[in-house]
């Protein structure tokens, strides 16, 4: 066979999987994001960082139980702590985190969970997940925010489920 055509065959043999493999990955991602529900934060609205003390829900940061096992955690990130810094929930709780910043850009990452958000002054960051395994989890500010950035650590405590009734 002509050497040149042999070269083309090699090229095609490489190109086909180079197209197919990324497409397969992308399909898997779309399924997990929109059917399984492992969603990234989206556009959840704006807020005036100078008026947090008079703007709901940030006028009352903290944890609220909306329904049994269903919580909302309203958090303000600021130089150099989270308010509230410690959140305690029973295992199996589904929690929506609603976070904003009072000053500069911060981050909000809870270890061993999908919660990972940028926290930007003027913007509301929102994510929901369920915590099944009891334990203590660190919450890190993961964006450089100033001289005390490394001190900006919170904690999520997942207590064993209150009633020993159902799960497992």
């Amino acid at each position, binding site marked *: 066979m002509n050497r*040149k055509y042999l*070269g083309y065959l090699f090229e095609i043999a490489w190109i086909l999987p180079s197209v197919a493999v990324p497409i397969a990955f992308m399909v898997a991602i779309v399924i997990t994001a929109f059917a399984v529900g492992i969603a990234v934060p989206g556009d959840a609205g704006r807020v005036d960082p100078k008026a947090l003390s008079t703007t709901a829900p940030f006028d009352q940061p903290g944890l609220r139980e909306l329904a049994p096992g269903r919580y909302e955690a309203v958090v303000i990130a600021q130089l150099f702590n989270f308010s509230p810094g410690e959140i305690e929930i029973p295992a199996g709780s589904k929690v929506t985190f609603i976070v904003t910043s009072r000053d500069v850009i911060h*981050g909000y990452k809870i270890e061993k969970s999908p919660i990972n958000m*940028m926290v930007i002054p*003027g*913007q509301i960051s929102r994510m929901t997940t369920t915590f099944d395994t009891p334990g203590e989890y660190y919450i890190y500010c993961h964006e450089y925010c100033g*001289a005390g950035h490394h001190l900006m650590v919170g904690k999520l405590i997942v207590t064993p489920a209150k009633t020993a009734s159902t799960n497992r």
Partner: protein
Amino acid sequence: MATARVSSVSITAERAEVGVFATEYRLTGLNMLIAFIALAIGGLFGVMQALQYNGIDLYKPISPILRGGYYQGLALHGVLNVLVFTTFFIIGWLTFVTSRSLGIPLASRALGWTTFGVMTSGLLIAALPLLLNNATVLFTFYPPLKADPLFYIGLTLVVVGTWLLLINQVMMLRQWRAANPTARIPLPAFMAIVTMTMWVICTFGVATEMLFLLIPWSLGLAPGTDPVLARTLFWFTGHPIVYFWLLPAYISWYNFVPQQAGGRLFSDPMARVAFILFLILSTPIGMHHQYTDPGISEIWKLIHAIFTFGVFFPSLLTFFNVVASLENGGRARGGKGWLVWVFSLPWREPSFTTQVLAMILFAFGGAGGLINASYNINLVVHNTSWISGHFHLTVGTAVTLSFMGITYWLVPHLTGRRLWSPTMALVQAWTWFIGMGIFAHWMHMLGLLSMPRRTAIGAMREIHPEWEPLLPMVAVGAIIMFISAILYYLNMVLTITAGKKDTVPMVPFARAVSGPEDGPRVLDNFKPWLAIAFTLIVINYTPTLIRLVSEMQFIPGIRSW
């Protein structure tokens, strides 16, 4: 190697050519000198960071000079290494590649010196607030962290300076086309021009951020600035900037490494297609750095994710083409078998080995990059030390180690002095490869354990017990790289000052197995590709930018360091 025996005739010709390109060579050399001084200073802070993770604080002893401690060092590490080192090296390198490939000097040498002058003044202006701890905002300078206006003005000048090289390249291409109306553009020049075109297009983002948001605000002319809008404009440039770093390394992998391997480039048309795809796809994907940002809709994030997967394709083409070229070289040198030909490659040749080692680590960096690009999988790693580990494989190795490899032949060629010690250069390449492999592996691991990036880990109130056994390996990797860097700089200083005087010929541009005549001529016509590139940018950015501008808030600046 083919270049080992050079006839006296070609030496004379070589001397004459070097004379023709004297100004270009001087500009290339000066740009690279500044680049590697920046890398030396920035790199020192990198080692200090890895030691700080392990409780060894070297910031106190230098606090009379640099008051800002860890984070000022981090700002210097980032700005000097990924902004200054890369940009200056690339401008020097592309000046060299364009003029040697087209065989003509810069169209305007005055413009060439202006490029250098504007960039250098910008660097000096930005360096002042950085050194005085008035710009400890890291290389991403996210507002509302507010630096001294000189920092923003200086960086803007550096970027504007780089644009002038494209003007020179376009004028040179016109001259060359007038003299060669039917010939195909030589591949190295084609690639250099595509790289600069992509860069000029994508820097509209950061230029807009600087001119309309950050500079007026830092001068006190605006009451505040909008952080999400600023981030979006930053990443408009901030993702394609990685291709601005990478493509000049690719230029070497496509056009010089096959020659150094003793073979030919596998396919010239495939290489051109890859570069055209980079031109089209590098920019409309920047929001994949903002997957976890509020204020941007999931749909646009997903669209940018899909296009990011698209830009993975030309990198896969490059992988194939470069490895096939290496195989061509290995077989030309008598190599046999499916893989055994690898051992026939010229592993004693420092420039070759350095760049091939850079390619090997880049394969891992590329795989990690695909993970980062994967929309919701990014939630596991976003802003953790995984990301720092990732870009130390890409820009810190694929780019930096390749640039070092280029200097192993280019500095002797530019200075007319032989490389002081090829053996030392080989040791340097391998120690960088090993040190970076260790460093990056453990940074990735720590990232999976949620260790945040850009954080003074050693100063935390509590270090996560799961991190503690892994942290020492970060320092081990950094120290090995530090030794590698000492070997590099020692070798370079000795080459320039004490290397044996000789006429060192340039590594010839590689010829191709399948030449440009096998690809369509439309590849050399930039207009249709530019039209597609602009269209994709408009589609992928306009809706989000219009909304962000219409909702703009004025958030006041803060100095929190």
